[in-house]
């Protein structure tokens, strides 16, 4: 058992690193849908915007470029989310599907614009200095950057949990997931909440894109792969549930890493099998709220 653990330590750690990234990505998607009923299919495209911003800014070996990329990506994400909120507003009275279709169109446009601007080559991004080395973890060499990702994921999970469970903003979030109309009846302007939620949700996507750039690089098609993983995470965890996003991200992280390492031929089946298994047992995801969104 311990031998097996030793052999696969790198894969397990990779799984945690992917899980951390997926959590950052999925929590935005989950909150936006849980609170605002907007299924943002442009989430993957926003992620890719972040990755390409990292390509732009992380030119030299300095922290400055990496932090600048994070800052710009956060700003771009906020603005994009705000714009998305404005664009979905005329569709608020229409079925949820119409808004999903709108974001699908936006994702097509954004992905094409990115491929026009940056071309179709795979771009790689180097980690910031100090994190581009390998660390010795229980006898195996492991990239320091990925360890930092795991740390960032943990810190962010803790921060999100604290905000949602312990602050008045968090109470608003929980209340909106449960019953948005009631919240609005209590005198809270739904539109302002929507702008904020979509802004923060999209910001998480672009920031995740920057964070992921040193691992995945940036290439056309990455947006779809990432969107799929994030959707699977959110479906497994339950839409609107932050705890669900965390558990789902950790599970899918391991499926993607350990699953691919141990059973490379059937990795796609494992991903789908996990999804199927969870949905058979819990049709609305592991941690679906008490109010079902249909």
């Amino acid at each position, binding site marked *: 058992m311990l031998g097996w653990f030793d052999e696969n330590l790198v894969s397990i750690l990779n799984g945690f690193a992917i899980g951390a990234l997926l959590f950052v990505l999925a929590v935005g998607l989950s909150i936006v849908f849980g609170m605002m009923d907007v299924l943002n299919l442009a989430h993957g495209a926003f992620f890719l915007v972040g990755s390409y911003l990292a390509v732009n800014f992380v030119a030299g070996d300095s922290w400055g470029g990496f932090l600048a990329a994070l800052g710009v990506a956060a700003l771009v994400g906020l603005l994009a989310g705000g714009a998305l909120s404005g664009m979905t507003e005329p569709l608020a009275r*229409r079925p949820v599907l119409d808004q999903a279709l709108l974001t699908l*169109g936006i994702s*097509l*446009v954004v992905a*094409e614009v990115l491929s026009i601007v940056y071309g179709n080559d795979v771009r790689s991004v180097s980690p910031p200095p100090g994190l581009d080395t390998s660390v010795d973890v229980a006898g195996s060499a492991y990239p320091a950057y990925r360890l930092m990702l795991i740390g960032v994921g943990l810190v962010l999970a803790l921060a999100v949990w604290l905000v949602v469970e312990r602050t008045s903003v968090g109470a608003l979030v929980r209340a909106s997931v449960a019953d948005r109309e009631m919240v609005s009846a209590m005198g809270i302007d739904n539109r302002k909440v929507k702008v904020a939620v979509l802004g923060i949700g999209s910001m998480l996507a672009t920031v995740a894109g920057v964070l992921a750039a040193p691992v995945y690089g940036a290439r056309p098609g990455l947006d779809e792969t990432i969107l*799929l993983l994030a959707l699977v995470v959110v479906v497994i965890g339950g839409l609107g549930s932050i705890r669900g996003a965390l558990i789902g991200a950790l599970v899918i992280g391991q499926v993607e890493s350990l699953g691919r390492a141990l059973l490379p031929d059937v990795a796609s*089946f494992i991903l789908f099998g996990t999804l199927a298994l969870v949905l058979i047992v819990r049709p609305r995801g592991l941690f679906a709220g008490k109010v079902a969104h249909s």
Partner: protein
Amino acid sequence: MSVQSLPAETAPGAAAAPAAPRRRRPPRALTAVLAVALLAVLAAVPLVADPFSTNTVSRILVFALFAMSLDLLVGLTGLPSLGHAAWFGVGAYTAGLVSTHWTSEGLVTVLAAAVAGALAAAATGWLAVRSGGVYFLMLTLAIGELVHQLAQSLSSVTGGSNGLFGIPSIRVAGTPLTLAGYVYWFVLAVVLLGALGLWLVAASPFGAALRGIRDNEGRMRSLGYSPFRYKYLAFALAGGFAGLAGGLFAGLVRIVNPSDAGFTTSALMLLAVVLGGAGTLWGPALGAAVVVLVRDTFGPTLEGHGPLLLGLVFIVAVYVLPRGVAGLADLRRGRRRAVLPGTDEAPA
């Protein structure tokens, strides 16, 4: 685009007739004349057009059938699928493999493709149709992406990311069809039969039950229908027709790529359905024509960035054409909505 015009006069009215007896329809004779005229024009295409244009129209026909099969899910049953290209891809690969390794007899390959599409959809559909709305969207996206990845990773069978190429040309009664015109007529015949099949499904009591489930699932359940069984069957049927279109596609272009089963193809077909008007069958066929023309004809002049234009069209269409082009036709006729949400749609 001939048979596609038929359902317009039957589909929306058939089920809702008791609720809206005064609904105006175009005269049957006019529709019949239009249908025959369209059929004649379509049949005459290879005689007047050059091979390249004939090939483009062939592809439009294939994608029209594909879009109509998706409409069976989206428009008729109210299940928006973002992974429908998976069954198209399954059909295309099946037809390609059958004609490479066994026989390229046209009817055998497209029937094998249809069966494979239906079986693949049935194998995964039970999971997808358990949920509705956005969950269905996400699950079909996941299933579609799985098929896409399989096409890429099973390279010993599918040729991996190079695609499956060197598919022999379609044979009819042992004679290979080498001229674009003969291939076109074969495609046209199969597409018309497929469209007829879809129209029969939509016009049948089964189709009426699907519309009932779309409009008011709770009510259908209380009437004793099992929504799950109907949705599941609709899912498998739609997969079968998409597979049929895929089989034609493989015989037509003679190369199948993993991207044919991928997300972008699914998204473009959903665009075709939305653009044309979900639930009318002829609308999505029209939408498919627009999508194929924009992607393949204008795409090269935009340096391969046709999807950019399609994405913009998609965004505009969501805002200004909530019921698609078919919705425009309804407006012109003075009826605002073909199906009212509260309309009693229970089958007689």
